[in-house]
């Protein structure tokens, strides 16, 4: 299969994984909305109860870190696609290069 071995085919796998990495990192969008909600609610409750500021702030940081998790998953997937691409080595093994 000569056309599978061509540099164009390898470049296609490269390009597809770069686009996939960009899409994976896009889920930071939802994380941003979630963290914005957490911050807004925390400010609201501090305004209502200023004496509970300390515990509200620490709870807010924990909630922010929890909401961040799904964004981190996407980030890790995009890092894997960019720096330790499993698709490319699999493709090269498939065509026997």
């Amino acid at each position: 299969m000569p056309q599978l071995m061509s540099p164009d085919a390898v470049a296609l796998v490269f390009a597809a994984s770069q686009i996939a990495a960009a899409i994976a990192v896009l889920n930071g969008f939802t994380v941003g909305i979630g963290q914005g909600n957490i911050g807004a609610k925390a400010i609201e409750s501090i305004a209502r109860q200023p004496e509970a500021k300390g515990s509200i702030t620490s709870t807010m940081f924990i909630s922010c870190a929890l909401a961040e998790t799904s964004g981190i998953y996407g980030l890790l997937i995009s890092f894997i696609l960019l720096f330790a691409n499993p698709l490319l080595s699999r493709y090269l093994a498939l065509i026997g290069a």
Partner: protein
Amino acid sequence: MNFNIRNLWSVNIGGAEIWITESLVSVWVVMLVLIAFAVVVRVKLPKFSDKPKGFQNAVEAMVEYFDRFVRTTAGEKLRFLGPWFFTVFAFILISNLSGVIFIGLLRPPTADWGVVFAFALITFILIQIMGVRYQKGQYIRAMFEPYFFSKVPNFLIFPLNLIGELARPVSLSFRLFGNILGGVILMGLVYGMLPLLLRFGLPAFLHAYFDLFAGALQAYVFTVLSLAFIGGAADTT
């Protein structure tokens, strides 16, 4: 640009090749810092006096603060876990902050999933042990809840509960690992992009955010979540 974990040298012990990787060396550096601090405390305070002053005050304040922290997050009866989680917190905090010192030399140890997963695995084992110890059969029974007609154990829901339980160490470790690795890669890209003159000073803001702020926050979050999970498993509801 290569962001893989470098292998510094390999040792041959009895036919088995052991790799001394970058993160292993940085773990040793962090351990050295912690051991040095412990030795300093031991030498400076050979005997704890009843009326604390100066250095003893600072050391006692740290231990007391953490003890109170464990009692409020995990519960009074899990107070004995305090020393372990103080150790974990100190180790992760120093590891995350070490990114400031190791610039261009070594990666912080927590940018290696193996290091972080070890801590998450210990938390997972502690969750199971404390759950069985304090809730006895109720802990195993909770895996089959909700029951059919509140009598028959629900074997259909068991796989879901099992996956939820197994996902805990993974999510706990990925959170810390992803944050630190993200910082390392982003700063590596910025250092590679900037011309030599601008490399001094400008990335300091990135270091302040990724190493100091995110590092301290993630060390805190890891400890709090571990304690909350263990407290939740040990508590009879």
